């Protein structure tokens, strides 16, 4: 039985990677094994945000006013437009709102539907103006009284209400009357009137 001489022994060998699909799905295998996790840290696109900030700042700077708001305007009061007004200066304010005349946040008169001779004067407004004038003359004893006052009213207010307020102001010596208007900026900007100090 020496027939076995020269015969080869085939052992058990590990098979190679012979089962190769036509389309290798490496990524799919990676996902299945959890090898390729997507990073959760995302880059914030800062350039667009800075662009937005810059545009916003330019817009706000163009609207910037160094003088600020001189006084508060009520919501239901629409000032008339004017394009050639001067800068509004700080002075006592009379508001004609609906049926009321308000001086420095205090109601000092009514606007009746029909104006009679007795309604021409506003005694409470006159008393308040007189009091403010005394205070101003006490504070600045060596200066002439300027009599500067601001009036604000809705654009639809009949002029009869404006005139009686003006008459009361003039009778108390407040002759430098300024009407507050909504500046539309159509004309050349004018500086405020020079003040005599």
């Amino acid at each position, binding site marked *: 039985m020496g027939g076995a001489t020269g015969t080869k022994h085939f052992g058990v060998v590990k098979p190679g990677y012979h089962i190769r699909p036509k389309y290798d799905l490496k990524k799919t295998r990676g996902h299945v094994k959890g090898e390729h996790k997507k990073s959760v840290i995302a880059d914030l696109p800062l350039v667009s945000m800075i662009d937005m900030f810059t545009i916003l700042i330019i817009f*706000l700077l163009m609207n910037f006013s160094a003088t600020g708001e001189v006084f508060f305007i009520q919501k239901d009061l629409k000032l008339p437009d004017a394009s050639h*007004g001067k800068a509004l200066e700080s002075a006592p304010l009379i508001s004609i709102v609906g049926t009321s005349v308000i001086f420095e946040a205090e109601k000092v008169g009514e606007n009746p539907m029909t104006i009679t001779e007795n309604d021409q004067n506003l005694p409470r407004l006159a008393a308040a103006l007189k009091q403010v004038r005394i205070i101003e003359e006490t504070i600045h004893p060596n200066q002439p009284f300027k009599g500067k006052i601001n009036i604000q009213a809705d654009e639809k207010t*009949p*002029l009869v209400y404006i005139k009686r307020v003006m008459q009361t102001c003039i009778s108390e010596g407040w002759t430098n*009357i300024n009407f*507050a*208007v909504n*500046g539309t900026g159509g004309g050349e900007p004018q500086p405020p*009137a020079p003040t005599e100090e």
Partner: protein
Amino acid sequence: MGASGLGGGGKRNVNVELNLVPFIDLLSTLICFLLMTAVWQQLSSLSTNSASTTSSESPAPPDPNRVDLSLSLLLDHMLAQEGKKSTKIAHVAGEPDYAALINVLTEWKSKYPDRQDIVLHTDSQAPYKQLIKLMDTLVENKFEDVGVNTN
């Protein structure tokens, strides 16, 4: 960033990332400040010289050669008065005809270039915005000393 000083084999990367954090801080602070101090309504004023029309003090003696310029705002028309001569300007669609008024004012300005004073008479029922618009038109045409008659 492999910087090799001797061999020169590795070149230093010249691309430097700008640190944007302080820049964004500055912009944010500026935006907050500007938003808080923003003035959304630009107020201005039109002044009237009421003392010249209603003052009880003794006025200066009138110049006999002086021509009074005045403007009357009524409900359906305006009257532009140059001394005794008056020009009627009818309203257009319920509003004063400002274009015609500008023509009259231009003519007056060519006649009296030094004059800046004018007196406004108004109807009591006319709306306030018409008075303001008239005053604005007068200031625009170099009649800046506007007196409003309150009687």
